[in-house]
């Protein structure tokens, strides 16, 4: 209860501010309309109308909620008008890209930790890769791949991979290097092999780092998948909904797609967090520290 109250307060405040902003931003249109029709308009009428515009500048919260409800619950999942259908298209690319990114990140980290040559040669490239704006790269990846016949899920997943391998690689390099000097000395006194040091010390020590970086990575994957849907003018996916919405000025649709993406990101991050807590608990990490 103690944790719910502050969250609830913040949500209530945001919704209140949102309503005020909606009135403020949508009012000029109503005044314009009234002026053109040459009739006076009362503030109470403006207030009413700003809540129900078809193409508002900023849709009111209940409009977005209604649209979300309408496109998830009342539409068949296989329908092109179902948000669940579009979310699934994006989610599948996100998950594939996330898995590939995590594997790539871990492989790179293992290489970097075990070889100073790789450390010196790879690390600068890994960092440079993230300084290039994804919006510049995404169209190129999509165009190049489609020219060799690869379309659909994989190109989007590759953009997700591109974004998600980075936090995992950086986090795991840190995690695999996290054992204390004394623990490393201890293994040395046993004249333990490199693989023993790796599996019995470095890997378990890196677990908290892995899950922290995976949380960042899964969110980045989702961004990657959505960005990957934009340049092709894709017909399906949350990115496509955003694009179509902005073509036709369907702001309610844009906002509901945004919310769908945010809810999905929150669910994915929470899921990874729970997985991390479970693994840490099984590894005997002190409950308070696991959080």
């Amino acid at each position: 209860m103690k944790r719910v109250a502050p969250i609830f307060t913040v949500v209530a405040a945001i919704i209140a501010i949102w309503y005020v902003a909606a009135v403020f931003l949508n009012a000029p249109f109503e005044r314009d309309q009234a002026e053109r029709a040459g009739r006076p308009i009362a503030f109470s009428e403006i207030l009413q109308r700003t809540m129900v515009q078809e193409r508002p500048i900023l849709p009111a919260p209940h409009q977005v909620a209604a649209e979300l409800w309408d496109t998830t619950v009342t539409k068949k999942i296989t329908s092109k008008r179902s948000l669940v259908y579009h979310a699934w298209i994006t989610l599948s690319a996100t998950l594939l890209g996330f898995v590939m990114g995590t594997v790539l990140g871990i492989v790179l980290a293992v290489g970097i930790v075990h070889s100073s040559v790789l450390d010196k040669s790879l690390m600068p490239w890994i960092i440079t890769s993230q300084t290039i704006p994804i919006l510049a790269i995404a169209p190129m990846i999509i165009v190049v791949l489609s020219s060799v016949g690869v379309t659909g899920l994989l190109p989007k997943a590759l953009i997700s991979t591109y974004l998600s391998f980075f936090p995992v690689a950086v986090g795991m390099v840190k995690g695999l290097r996290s054992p204390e000097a004394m623990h490393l000395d201890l293994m040395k006194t046993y004249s333990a092999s490199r693989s023993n040091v790796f599996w019995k010390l470095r890997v378990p020590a890196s677990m908290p780092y892995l899950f922290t970086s995976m949380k960042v990575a899964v969110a980045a994957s989702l961004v990657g998948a959505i960005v990957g849907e934009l340049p092709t003018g894709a017909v399906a996916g949350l990115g496509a909904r955003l694009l179509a919405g902005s073509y036709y000025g369907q702001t309610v649709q844009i906002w509901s797609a945004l919310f769908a993406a945010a809810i999905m990101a929150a669910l994915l991050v929470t899921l990874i967090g729970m997985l991390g807590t479970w693994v840490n608990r099984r590894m005997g990490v002190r409950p308070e520290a696991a959080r």
Partner: protein
Amino acid sequence: MDTQTVIKAEKLNLTFQTNDGPVHALSNIDLSIDKGEFVSLIGPSGCGKTTLLRVIADLEKPSDGTITVNGMTPEEARLKRAYGYVFQAAALFPWRTIADNIALPLEVMGLDKAEREKRVSENLELVDLAGFGNKFPWQLSGGMQQRASIARALAVQPDMLLMDEPFGALDEIVRDHLNEQLLKLWAATKKTVVFVTHSIPEAVFLSTRIVVMSPRPGRIHDVIDCDLGENRTLDIRETPEFLKIAHRVRDGLRAGHSYEDV
């Protein structure tokens, strides 16, 4: 019984390069330890006791001088698992239970499961931790963790034990008890023990020889023979022989840090 030199250090020097300039941690250390001896290193904080132990264990390389362990270089001896090392802190892996921590070196050595379990339970008993095998380190007190780390070193059954203030974190009663246990173990197995301590009674009670060190630069100030006979018990601490040796150790320590009296 023919004596056999296990550790031989000659003109050993070690200088750490730090940001504030060089620290001369060991200066002209000459020390020879025979098989089956129990040698204590005692001296004020920062006089290089840990450093000397780490050089023997090949965790630190001397800058100058020679040292052999079992007639080999320390590195060769380490690769042959010649010793068990007890660190100044417990250094348990937080993600392993106490039993699994003790089993760690046994896993590295490739012992089978039955043998590992046997040694784990034997050594848990030896340090009075039977029944705590399934606990995680954070569920134990600092002293219990330290005892677990001693059990871990003993489980390896090495011919030589290097112990860095193993009982420093324990209360007097537990310390006395473990002192007796260690003495029994040493008498029964004739292991060579190099033992760092800050406690004069502990050093005199356990040792066959006491090496008094002094700081800046870390060097050997005095070496005191002190064999109080086999099968001694803690009662010996009241005897005149005991007190005489303790007195000499105390004098050595005082002389080593006389500058602090000023």
